[in-house]
C-alpha cells in the first residue's frame, strides 16, 4: 500500500519539479541503481569490488561505439554492453575466485582491472577522440534513447532502480540470497554445507557486472559524451560503492538510501561552496569515515541490528 502510494508519488513528481530537481532525482535513482547492482556482489555475496568502473566503462563504450560506427540502436547496444560486461565479470571472477583472492586482495585486483581498461582507453582515445566521444544529437525519441527534456531520463532511471530493487528482493527471498549470505559470513562453512561457493560467487558477479554495464549506457545517453576518466576512472568505482556502504551493504534499500543522502549532501555542498570542484568528495570522505567508525554496517544495517537487540531484550 505504502509502496504503491510512493510509486504513484514518484511517477507524478516530475510535473512539479524544475529541471534542476528532476536532474537531482535522476542522479539519485541512477546511483541507487548502480549501488544496488554493486550490492549484489559486494553486499550480499561479500565480494568487495573496488573496480566496478571496469563494467560501467565497458557498457558505456560498447553502446556508444556501436552506435557511432555501426549505427546500432542504443537499446540494443545497452544489452550488448551488458553482455560484454558480464563476460568480463565472468573472466575476472573465475580467475579471482579460482585462485582464492579474498577481501582486500580481490578489491585491489578489481581496481587494477579497471585501471588497465582505463589506460587502454586513454591510449586509444588520445589518437582518435582527444575530446571524448560525442554521440550525435538526434530527435527526441524513446527509440533513439535521447531526449531534449529531463523527465524521460527521470522515468528511465526510476524504472531501472525499481527493477533492480525488485530483483534484489527476489534474490533475497530465494535460496540464492541465502547462499550469498552464507558465503559472505563464512565461506568454508558454506562449502562444508555443500554450497558451491565458486559457482554462486560467479552468479553474483555475473548479475552485478551485467547491470553495472547497462548503467554505463544510461550514463552515455544522458550526457551524450563519454571519456575514459568519466567512465573508467577510480572515482566511478568509489562513487558506486559509497551508496551501499553508507546506506547499508547487504540490505535491499541500503544503496538507494545511501545514494539519496550522498546526492543531497553533494548538492548542498556545491551550493554552499560554489566554484570549488571536488568539495563534495571531501564531504563524502567525512561521511564515510563517520559511518565506518560509528555504523560499521551502514545506516540500515545499524538500524536492523538495533531492532534485533531491542526485540531480543523484550
Amino acid at each position, binding site marked *: 500500500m505504502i509502496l504503491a502510494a510512493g510509486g504513484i508519488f514518484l511517477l507524478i513528481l516530475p510535473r512539479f519539479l524544475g529541471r534542476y530537481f528532476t536532474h537531482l532525482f535522476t542522479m539519485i535513482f541512477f546511483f541507487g541503481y548502480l549501488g544496488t547492482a554493486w550490492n549484489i556482489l559486494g553486499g550480499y555475496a561479500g565480494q568487495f569490488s573496488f573496480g566496478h568502473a571496469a563494467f560501467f566503462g565497458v557498457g558505456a563504450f560498447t553502446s556508444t561505439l556501436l552506435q557511432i560506427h555501426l549505427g546500432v540502436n542504443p537499446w540494443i547496444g545497452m544489452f550488448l554492453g551488458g553482455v560484454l560486461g558480464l563476460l568480463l565479470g565472468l573472466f575476472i571472477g573465475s580467475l579471482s575466485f579460482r585462485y582464492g583472492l579474498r577481501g582486500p586482495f580481490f578489491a585491489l585486483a578489481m581496481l587494477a582491472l579497471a*585501471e588497465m581498461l582505463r589506460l587502454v582507453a586513454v591510449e586509444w582515445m588520445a589518437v582518435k577522440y582527444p575530446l571524448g566521444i560525442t554521440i550525435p544529437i538526434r530527435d527526441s525519441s524513446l527509440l533513439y534513447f535521447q531526449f531534449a527534456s529531463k523527465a524521460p531520463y527521470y522515468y528511465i532511471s526510476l524504472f531501472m532502480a525499481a527493477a533492480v530493487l525488485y530483483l534484489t528482493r527476489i534474490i533475497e527471498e530465494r535460496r540464492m540470497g541465502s547462499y550469498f549470505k552464507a558465503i559472505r559470513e563464512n565461506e568454508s562453512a558454506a562449502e562444508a554445507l555443500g554450497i558451491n561457493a565458486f559457482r554462486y560467487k560467479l552468479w553474483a558477479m555475473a548479475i552485478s557486472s551485467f547491470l553495472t554495464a547497462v548503467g554505463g549506457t544510461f550514463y552515455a545517453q544522458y550526457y551524450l559524451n563519454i571519456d575514459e576518466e568519466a567512465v573508467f576512472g577510480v572515482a566511478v568505482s568509489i562513487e558506486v560503492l559509497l551508496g551501499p556502504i553508507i546506506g547499508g551493504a547487504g540490505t535491499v534499500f541500503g544503496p538507494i538510501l545511501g545514494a539519496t543522502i550522498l546526492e543531497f549532501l553533494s548538492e548542498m555542498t556545491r551550493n554552499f561552496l560554489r566554484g570549488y570542484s571536488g568539495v563534495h568528495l571531501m564531504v563524502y570522505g567525512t561521511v564515510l569515515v563517520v559511518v565506518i567508525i560509528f555504523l560499521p554496517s551502514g545506516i540500515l544495517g545499524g538500524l536492523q541490528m538495533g531492532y534485533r537487540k531491542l526485540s531480543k531484550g523484550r
Partner: protein
Amino acid sequence: MSLPGLPLLLQSIVSGILMGGVYGLIAIGLTLIFGVMRIINFAHGSFMMLGMFTTYWLFIVLGIDPYLSLLISIPLLFVLGLIVERFLIAQVLDAPEYNQLLLTLGISLFIENFALFLWSPNFRALNVPYVKKTATVGTLMISLPKVIAFLFAIFFTVLLYYFLRKTDLGKAIRASSEEKEGALTVGINLRRIYYVAFGIGTACVGAAGTLIAPFFYVNPHVGGVFVITAFVVVVLGGMGNLIGALVGGLIIGLAESLGAAFLPGQLKQFIIYFIFILVLLFKPEGLFERRSG
C-alpha cells in the same frame, strides 16, 4: 636489438633504478603498516602529497631548500600519522578488513579534496636552480634530483632497517608483526606499537614526497599516481616484507622505465597492473619468502 637501441636501454635501466629506489621508500611505509597492523592504507598517497606540498610551500614562502625541508616534512608527517592512527584507525582495528580499507579511503578522499579546496587543482612545479642539472656520462643523462632522491631513499631504508634490527622499539615492532600473541605475552604494548608503526609509515612516505617534489609536479591528486604503484610494489615484495619492498620498488621502477622506452604511451602502466594481477593470483605471498625487517 639493434645497436642504436643500446644507449636507450642503458638510459632506461639507470632511470628505472633511480626511480625504483623512491618507489621502494614509498612502499616500505605501506608494507610496514600492513605487516604490523594488517591494514591496507589507501590514504598513503595522500600523505605523500602532503609531504610534497610541505616542501613546496616551505620553498615558495620561506625559500627553504627542498632537501633541507626533510627536517620538517618527516616529523610533520610522523605526527600526522600518529593523530590519524590514534583517532581514526585505532577505532576499526577489529572491524572487517574491507571496512578498514574503506576508512582509509574516506581519509584519503577527505585529505585530497581538502587540499584541492585549499590549493586548487593547479599543477605546480618547484623551480630550484640546481634541479635542472643533469650529469652526462658517455651517452647517459642522469638528472641530479633523481640521484639525490635515490641516495636519500636508500639511506632512509637502511636507517629504518637498523632501527628495526637494533633498537628495542624496533624489535618490538618486528615481534608484533611476526607473532601478535607472542608479542602480547612478553608484555609488548600493541596499541603503542601500532601507533608508532603507522607514524613511521607516514613519515617514510612524507620523506618520499619531499624527495620527489623537485622533479615531479605537485597537485592534490598526485598521490593517486604513486599509491597504486606502491600497492603493486608491496604485493610483489610480499606484504609486510621491508627488503622485499625495496627490491620490488627497483623491479617496478625498471619495468616502468623499460616499458616507457619500448612501449607506446601509457602502456608501461598497463604492464605494471598486469604484473600486479598475475602476482595476486599466482604468487600472493610475493616473490620472496617472508622475512621481516
